């Protein structure tokens, strides 16, 4: 499966709306097999739609993102895991191992998948990942 992460240096970009760089990672059988970096303007949702279709992206991992943005992506059929923070490599490591994202949740998060009582169902491995918020 292919996932997209908005990045800021080696970290997840803190605010999607102001992010400029997108990292698209191809994961096959629990291993990262390809990486592509693109620059973008967060307001251009038509660009994302095109790129995500081209690169067959199913999941977007990002920092803080406003509700409107999440709705736009969900309308495109893209699952969004918002309000994550931390180093991209560590997050990818967790991801391919199928572990939860709780260590990467932004402080004060009340909108992560666990808070919404829903999970991110991934193609591989078949499991539910949750960005558990700290209580």
């Amino acid at each position: 499966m292919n996932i997209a992460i908005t990045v800021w240096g080696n970290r997840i970009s803190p605010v999607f709306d102001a992010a400029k760089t997108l990292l698209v990672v191809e994961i096959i059988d629990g291993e990262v097999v390809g990486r592509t970096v693109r620059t973008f303007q967060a307001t251009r949702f038509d660009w994302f739609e095109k790129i995500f279709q081209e690169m067959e992206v199913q999941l977007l991992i990002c920092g803080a993102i406003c509700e409107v943005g999440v709705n736009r992506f969900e309308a495109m059929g893209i699952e969004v895991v918002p309000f994550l923070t931390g180093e991209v490599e560590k997050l990818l490591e967790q991801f391919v191992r199928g572990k939860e994202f709780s260590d990467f949740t932004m402080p004060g998060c009340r909108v992560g998948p666990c808070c919404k009582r829903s999970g991110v169902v991934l193609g591989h491995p078949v499991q539910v990942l949750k960005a558990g918020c700290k209580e």
Partner: protein
Amino acid sequence: MSGKSSLSEAANAIILESISDGVFTVDHNWRIMSFNRAAEEITGTPRNEAIGRYCWEVFRSNMCEGDCALKRTMKEGKSFVSSSTYIINNRQKRVPIGVSTSPLKNDKGEILGGVETFRDHSLVEELRRELSGSFEMGDMVSRSSSMKKIFNILPQVAESDSTVLIEGETGTGKEVMATALHNLSWRKGNPFVAINCGALPDSLLESELFGYKAGAFTGADKDKPGLFEAAGNGTILLDEIGDTSSAFQVRLLRLLEEKEYQPLGSVEKCRTNTRIIAATNRDLERMVEEGTFRRDLFYRINIIRFQLPPLRQRKEDLPLLVEQFIKKMNHIKGGAVAHMSKEAMALLLVHDYPGNIRELENIIEHGFVLCHEAEMDIDHLPAYLQESGTRSHSFVNSIEDSVRISEKESIEEALRRNNYNRLAAAQDLGVHKSTLFRKIKKYQITLPTQDGRTRRL
């Protein structure tokens, strides 16, 4: 001494907790050291979760990644006041804020970190939106009294099914107004169709509007529905109605009276429930007097008439329109232009806009091609505007010169008329004699050695 110090620390803590501005401090590693109650409320992050975390994880501002005010403060060791920005709170809502930053120093002046204070501007933004909302109707914006009158009755007109006539120069927004009327009416969910009647010859216009039957003319292989059928229960805008032929006007009159039309080649009539809005940039009343527009049709379409003022008569709307077009272009083109510079706005205000709002929109679009900064400036505007700006500046100078020359000539003439008697000349000009003396000196008017007063003596 230590007692005083601890008292002031306690007092500071109380003050910090009681103010409505969010305040947090960071160390050199951008880790949050303190976080007050208002900061908790505005960001939605509890203090115990915020302390020790990187500031960008908690603050979540659109400035964090690029133009961080705190970073500039720490780098330059000075304060920055009131940058407008927004944060995303823990409920995924954008919160507009104003930010001020200062370096955090110890008694020795060493920088220990930075302090950021921020104020929630949600209410201000909400009020601003409400205020600007009262100047909006559909896609139209205006603060001018003439447009305000139109805005006041537009919803009532939209509710009715009466035919509307919109008059206005080219580019004044006739189609935008027709769209607003459609969108404010119960027909909103139905199609809105616009056609420029002046651009098509009669036969083509009729086939476009009423459609035709197979075999109606050579090449008509199958039935073609017209725009009235396509519009259904919607609205049709007949633009440039003043440019239609007399024959077409007769057909249109029949349609308006009978609510029926006949497609070309058909023997049967079709009923229509489409609302008709007519628009023109010509003076239909004058055309009726001249006999170039049918009087009966004029009275049939002139049930409710709106006259859209040209932009040069509502220049108070320019800032609002510029703001609207900047927003629109930012959305369409994905730009990041925030506003127009004062100098560029001044230049826009002196222009006469023969092309009206459409011309203004094109000017802003031109600016978007050239402007890659937050502020659109004179250099980004079309060359013809910059030239006219220079011309109007030289025109201003020439007016001042003209006034000066004219005043000098009037004084000389009055002096001659009164045989250089300065008191009589002053009375003649309706000014005090000291004013006249001052102006004689200013314009270096040479007086004869023997003036009127001397001669009289």
